[in-house]
């Protein structure tokens, strides 16, 4: 059989095979890479979330921020005990305004509230607060 007679068909078949090979290559890349990409994206999102969570709940500046709680009311009203990453604070005879300010500040801090007690004495408030970070 003289293959030269079918040269045109051969050329077309070869180019068709080339196209099919490229198509299979593309599909293989899409299926394998999309799964890989999905895993990578998931891990990257998880990592970013972890970094944010770590920075929020175990940030290095929390300790300094907590010191604000001691100075925001007159020192005569505060009993302060800060050991390592734990705080026990007692506030007495706070006005409603001071109480509001204190609670707002506590809530805005990234500390783990272990105990928060508020009790009313006639027109003033006593607060006990324990937290860690």
């Amino acid at each position, binding site marked *: 059989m003289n293959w*030269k*007679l079918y040269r*045109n068909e051969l050329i077309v078949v070869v180019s068709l095979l080339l*196209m099919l090979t490229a*198509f299979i290559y593309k599909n293989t890349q899409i299926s394998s890479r999309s799964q890989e990409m999905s895993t990578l994206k998931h891990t990257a999102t998880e990592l970013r979330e972890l970094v944010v969570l770590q920075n929020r709940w175990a940030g290095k500046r929390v300790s300094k921020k907590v010191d604000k709680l001691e100075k925001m009311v007159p020192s005569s009203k505060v009993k302060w005990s800060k050991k390592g990453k734990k705080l026990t604070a007692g506030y007495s005879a706070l006005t409603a305004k001071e109480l509001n300010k204190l609670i707002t500040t506590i809530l805005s801090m990234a500390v783990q509230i272990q105990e*928060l007690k508020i009790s009313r004495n006639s027109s003033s408030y006593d607060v006990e607060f324990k937290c860690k970070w």
Partner: protein
Amino acid sequence: MSFLGNSKALVLAYSGMKKQSLSDSVNIMLSPRFYTLKKEALPLKYLYQAKKIAPSLFDGLVEDPQKYDYFVYREADEWVFIAYDMEAINDFLVSKGIQPEQVAKIFFAQQASASFTVPVLLGEKEALVSLDNTVVSIPQAVLQKDSKVLSFDDSFTPKTGVTPQGVHASVLSRKQTIGLTIFFTLFALMFFVEGWRYSHNSQAAQEEMQTLLEENPSLQSQYTRESIAAKYRTIDKSERRKRDVVKTLAGMIFKGVKVSTFQMNEKMFKIDFICSDAKVAQRLVQLAKKSEFSSGKIISGNVVHIEEKL
């Protein structure tokens, strides 16, 4: 299939040749009857230039020059132009039992003019001979009785020849072939580029991931990540809940309502509100229930007590 075209048997095609019975493909050498020859000393350098002007040289020599195919080669200082009608040649070969697919290459007797210095007999009446470097067919009667004759064999095979285009066997024309090939090749390129881009995107994501891990080496282990994630997610959820509770309770304080006591720890919270009258206390209980504190109830006097787990 042989890649050496010239290793095939060479068959001389002439008018009176016998019908052939071939089992393999052959090379064909055409006698002058099948082509028109013209030699010109033209100032042309390249073969493609000679091929381009070939049809114009045969104006008047052949009926329709555009219908013919042309074979051109250089011989000493002259260009040799050969016009041939491929369709007519094929028809002749088929009539002699040679199918188009059995023809490997076609040569012209003129190409082997150096071999025809001694006559080669064509059947019983004619002979091929080279006169002034041009192979012509002459009657055997003009040959001298004792003149030598050559037998035709494969040694007459020239170096170059015409490869049939397969017009009779091929389903696709040249234009169709070019069109389809370009079409398929373009798509192949597109698919390849797309595949490559997917592969490249994945690499970029891997690099980004690597950068993140390098910035946070403590998170490189999957086990560590899961452990840290579990720890901080629990803290985050619990602390958000505590803050939401305090904010909701603060929102429940309106005219006639004061906080008596409030206590919150890791597991629960409880609060007592002192209300100015029973109506306010009732309204506060309803508000508590609306805020999803279903445990809200009035105890002793106008005190509303709420106690729930976190």
